[in-house]
């Protein structure tokens, strides 16, 4: 039985999991969850993700939630462990550091920006709260200064090797690039080049297409 991912491809957290499946080339089935109809809060979905969020993931009897946990499982199982470096203590630790940074700094600043610029106008019929956007763009810029310094020294975040820490940025990076604030990265040339590098990976291109197709359908 193929692995199953439950959730809409347009969700950044779902996309994170899909890109790992594409990286390792494992068969999977993407099972839609219609969040506009509250399907993520249905008993069936909550039995897989007790917090009523997406994604949920199933591999045989194993049911997982939380995209970064699912991603690591897929990479370990599917022959993608070079993206985690768990055979090398120092390298694995650097992957973990920058995965925490992705989650705690990049994602936490980007998430309200994407919510205000995409979800509110497209799915909720509302207006973008520019105060929230501006506040979070400032947070994002402070983080990008650190990224710029880091990527001036190393080709990728954890070192001179690409890892899950880099790839984990792509879903939010995609929305940044296609949204109204893409120019914010122009001031950070190493960041800009690094994002372009990540976005050019075949796995990332494939999932980006899935994300775009899902948005077009709405």
């Amino acid at each position, binding site marked *: 039985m193929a692995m199953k991912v439950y959730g809409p491809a347009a969700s950044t957290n779902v996309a994170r999991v899909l890109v790992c499946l594409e990286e390792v080339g494992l068969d999977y089935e993407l099972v839609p969850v219609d969040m506009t109809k509250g399907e993520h809060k249905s008993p069936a979905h909550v039995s897989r993700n*007790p*917090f009523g969020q997406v994604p949920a993931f199933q591999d045989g009897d*194993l049911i*997982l*939630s*939380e995209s*970064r*946990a*699912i991603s*690591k*499982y897929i990479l*370990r*199982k599917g022959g993608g462990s070079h993206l985690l470096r*768990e055979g090398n*203590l*120092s390298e*694995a*630790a*650097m992957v*973990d*550091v920058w*995965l*925490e*940074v992705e*989650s*705690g*700094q990049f994602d936490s600043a980007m998430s309200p920006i994407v919510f205000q610029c995409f979800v509110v106008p497209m799915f909720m019929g509302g207006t973008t709260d520019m105060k929230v956007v501006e506040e979070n763009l400032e947070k994002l810029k402070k*983080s990008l200064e*650190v990224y710029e*310094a*880091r990527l001036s020294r190393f080709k990728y975040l954890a070192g001179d090797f690409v890892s899950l820490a880099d790839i984990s940025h792509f879903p939010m990076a995609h929305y940044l690039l296609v949204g109204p604030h893409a120019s914010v990265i122009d001031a950070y040339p190493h960041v800009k080049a690094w994002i372009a590098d990540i976005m050019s990976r075949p796995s990332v291109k494939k999932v980006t297409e899935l994300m775009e197709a899902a948005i077009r359908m709405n």
Partner: protein
Amino acid sequence: MAPVKVYGWAVSPFVARALLCLEEAGVEYELVPMSRAAGDHRRPEHLARNPFGQVPVLEDGGLTLFESRAIARHVLRKYKPELLGGGDLAASATVDVWLEVEAHQHHPAAGAVVKECVVSPLLGGAPDQAVVGENVEKLRKVLEVYEARLGQSRYLAGDLVSLADLSHFPIMRYFMDTEHAALVEALPRVKAWWEELAARPAARKVAELMPPNFGFSKKP
């Protein structure tokens, strides 16, 4: 062999997370004290260790790490991997899941309550009751999930204690001193899980460095 060093103030729940893992793994370490009030974390020598200017930082041989959950994973991977699920794919995935839950579901809510109810008054402010109310409700829903989970397994990630459980200790240590501890007291399995966590020798040792008032002196 150079000792492991942790830089920071132990009252920080993030620093405490790193110390807890070192204690659990029985690793000798040196805590290099830093002063938040003096702005030590913004000095160039600290920014060279953590460009985000935060604590903790861990030095282990030639390796310099920041982000407390990354530090925790490194310490346990190196010195006590059974607390990460060992080599088993499903077990390690389940530990990862509940560690992410701690970070994304538990900490934002519990941390907000601690910030308003404990830290704000110490800084001379008043708790924002709207924020407290919102986060107490969020935390209640999260802990109800934990209560159900702990009915299925002895610990969050299975029948063995793991980093997923330990990672909750620092912020809960402060949360349980607030009036909202009643949330935990009302859920029998969560209560028993918390009490067992807090009774671990490593947790007791680290708690000695975490006075309930965060080490602020009482204002006259």
